[in-house]
């Protein structure tokens, strides 16, 4: 299975994401934001970082790049897409996921190991977890406060679109402790915490993050 990892100008975690893909047992494929070439990958990861220096709004310029427009079209026909941190911001800006990510309520960059409650264990990227499981992965952001209008939040909750929720403390003031959400079909997932930084005991607080990348292997087999 081939999983594409998109690099934007200002991406930081594309190499870690590719490493996580490899450790999960898939082949990472480097994709460049400026090209209309998805290279026939079976899934796509949008990594963390500061694409375009967070100019205008975090993820705003990257969301209008040629490859992301292709990703949006492919996602509408079921391509599994995972957005991590800046990648989540890009997916929200591109309209693939609801809501928006804004400046942390306390205005500080927050970098720590974070406990998350898995509320959806049936998406393309979370099927290897158990619903209600608590996992620990790093979180590191300055603009990670998830917001949407109250009516939209109610609708998301009603539809079960919250995939992971902060537990044991909210690192950025996100509405309703929301750490990650999914598309209606469960194929697109975005989250602020970094599962790709929790794939080996040597370097991460756990290996819980590997579950996201293992899950999509199963999703591709099932598709």
């Amino acid at each position, binding site marked *: 299975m081939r999983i594409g990892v998109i690099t934007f100008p200002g991406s930081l975690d594309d190499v870690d994401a590719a490493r996580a893909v490899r450790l999960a047992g898939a082949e990472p494929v480097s994709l460049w934001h400026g090209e209309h070439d998805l290279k026939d990958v079976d899934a796509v990861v949008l990594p963390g970082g500061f694409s375009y220096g967070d100019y*205008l*709004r975090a993820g*705003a310029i990257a969301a*209008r790049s040629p490859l992301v427009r292709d990703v949006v079209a492919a996602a509408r026909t079921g391509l599994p897409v995972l957005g991590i941190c800046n990648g989540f911001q890009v997916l*929200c*800006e591109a309209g693939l996921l*609801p*809501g*928006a990510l*804004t*400046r*942390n*309520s*306390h*205005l500080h960059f927050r970098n720590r190991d974070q406990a998350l409650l898995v509320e959806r264990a049936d998406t393309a990227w979370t099927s290897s977890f158990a619903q209600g499981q608590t996992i620990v992965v790093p979180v590191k952001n300055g603009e990670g406060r998830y*917001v*949407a*209008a*109250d009516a939209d939040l109610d609708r998301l909750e009603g539809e079960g679109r919250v995939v992971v929720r902060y537990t044991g403390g909210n690192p950025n*003031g996100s509405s309703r402790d929301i750490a990650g959400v999914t598309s209606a079909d469960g194929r697109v997932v975005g989250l602020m915490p970094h599962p790709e930084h929790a794939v080996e005991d040597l370097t991460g607080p756990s290996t819980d993050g590997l579950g996201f990348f293992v899950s999509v292997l199963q999703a591709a087999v099932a598709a």
Partner: protein
Amino acid sequence: MPILCPAQAEGQRTAPLGVSATGELLTVDGSVVHDLAFGPRPTGRDRAAGTLVPVPVVVVDVVLKPEISDPQGQAVLGALGRLGHSGVRSVRQGKHFVLDVEGEPDEAELREIAETLLANPVIEDVELHLPTD
């Protein structure tokens, strides 16, 4: 902000060549560039007397929707309080875009630009200010 010089008033494009001893921008032939960036900023509604070329300037203001909290504005408010400006009750921070457009501004196109790129309609409100004259 484009640099305007007398040559441009006649439809030519002339880049500034250098800076004079007194800090004025010079063109290729050594004449002084009258740079509007150093004078009053022209806007659609308030153009300075003596402007060489009327440039259609479109202004777009973007602010967070009232229901979205603005921690940056709150930090500014806190600083104002510490400086003794106790009369300010609230601060909302936003973005201000100035667009020089070619020819007659196309309101529909500019509205699309403002609403789909310059602002994120999920969290922000946008105001488009077109030249009125």
